[in-house]
């Protein structure tokens, strides 16, 4: 079953085209990553799918509905974490969850959600005393308390320290195991690689590639072969690493030379990403 279907989606702000005709589909139960640098159109795309912004063109279907016209039934099934946490400083985490649980016809147990997002120790502390990462986790908890089928996470771990990120990733994996569909935006490659079943790389409002993280790093980008000759580093980039390496080593063996510092490197997702988004890989 398809949870999200996007066709030829466009969004302009005045003369600026933030999203320029993108297509993708997300299956139920899938974790889909929208990856790209700031300003690539990730948040615009997600907020159109959440029903916050009106599209300028194209078709969008989320859980079988047009999010622009969707009502209460749609909101019951969707959980949203916005890019920045928005909470009441004077309420505790538990009070927040009780308040939001009350908005849903069918909600999860508040204590269960507190445990799920790892806030048991801070459940009765006022939000103004929580750290940035703890607020973010509470924000995630608020998105989960209505037991949604589909969850939007807009840069869920921006500003986290490494340990907090790993915890957040564990939580997302837990949601995936529960069969939730998740649309995640991030500009962290390792996050996309760790969490997403499939990734779409966005650049200047267009999708430059879609696929499994492992597919993105295979094939499309050249393998790098490095070695030193007379103290200088030689770098070869090739689409035929087997042949090039064979020639290189055969030549060296025939000449009785050693290829100092020989290194064969498959591109990382980071290399692919930088190549695709026009950044500099070196």
């Amino acid at each position: 079953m398809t949870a999200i279907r996007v066709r030829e989606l466009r969004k302009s702000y005045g003369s600026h085209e933030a999203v320029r005709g993108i297509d993708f589909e997300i299956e139920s139960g899938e974790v889909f990553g929208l990856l790209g640098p700031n300003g690539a159109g990730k948040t615009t795309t997600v907020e159109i799918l959440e029903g916050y912004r009106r599209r300028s063109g194209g078709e969008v279907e989320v859980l079988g509905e047009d999010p622009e016209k969707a009502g209460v039934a749609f909101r019951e099934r969707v959980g949203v974490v916005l890019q920045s946490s928005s909470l009441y400083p004077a309420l505790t985490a538990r009070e927040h969850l009780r308040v939001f649980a009350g908005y849903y016809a069918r909600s999860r147990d508040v204590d269960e959600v507190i445990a799920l997002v790892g806030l048991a120790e801070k459940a009765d502390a006022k939000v103004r005393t929580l750290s940035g990462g703890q607020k973010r986790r509470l924000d995630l908890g608020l998105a989960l308390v209505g037991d949604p089928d589909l969850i939007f996470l807009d840069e869920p771990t921006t500003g986290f320290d490494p340990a907090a990120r790993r915890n957040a990733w564990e939580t997302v994996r837990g949601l995936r195991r529960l069969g939730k569909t998740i649309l995640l935006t991030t500009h962290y490659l390792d996050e996309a690689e760790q969490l997403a079943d499939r990734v779409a790389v966005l650049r200047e409002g267009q999708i430059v590639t879609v696929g499994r993280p492992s597919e993105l790093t295979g094939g499309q980008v050249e393998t790098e072969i490095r070695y030193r000759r007379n103290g200088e580093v030689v770098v070869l980039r090739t689409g035929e690493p087997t042949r090039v390496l064979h020639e290189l080593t055969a030549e060296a063996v025939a000449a009785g030379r050693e290829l100092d510092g020989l290194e064969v490197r498959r591109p990382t997702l980071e290399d692919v990403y930088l190549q695709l988004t026009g950044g500099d890989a070196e």
Partner: protein
Amino acid sequence: MTLFLHELRTEQLLFWRNREAAIFTFLLPIVFFLMFGAIYGNDRIEHRYRGAAYLEAGMIGYGVAATAFAGLAITLVIRRESGILKRVRSTPLPPGVYIAAVLGSTLIVFAVQAVLIVVLGKLLFGVGFPDLPGSLILALLLGAATFAALGLAITAAVRSAEGSSAVINIVYLPMAIISGTFFSPHSYPGFLRGIADVLPLTYFTQLARAIMLDGKPIWSQPGAVGAVAAWGIVGVLAALRGFRWQPREG
């Protein structure tokens, strides 16, 4: 209805938990009543009224501006700019129910405040309880509705959470003084009275004083009722056009 009550409870919790807002909108009019009551409570105002009784009606007017206009507007701007309104819109809570609960909660705060002012007036300054409670309640409801509509409307003119207190105080504090909630406007210079003549709080305060001091029923004051209601309609129309749920950017 369950959703409304749930949100009303939430709003009450939020209001009383947020001490700055509670002091500024709830306590300040009461403090001013006690202060100015001590200063001129026993003076004669406009040769007819006892100072404390005159001030009591004025402070109810100041109170409606503080709670329904200033307090409501500042709270909603802060919630809008911090993304809370946007966040709430992602839930199944209908926006109309949310606004209704916010307004209902404001009305509760104002009602408690007005009752406290009347009771303190009786206990401390010996001002009698109002003779026409029905007219007074109707007038207070009209005032709360008008100033709440204006409060919703002015949120559109405030761009940032940081600026919300400043912008709204600059509108409402001079309005409260010019409208004669603290002092009798009869002694004001002509240009201030000219400004006072267009302000809604002037007419609300006149209405409150006619009911509380002169014992005139609300229907005997069509001019003041009409002026307050007209401002309310302006507020509703402006709020419908300009009220936003999302922060300016992001």
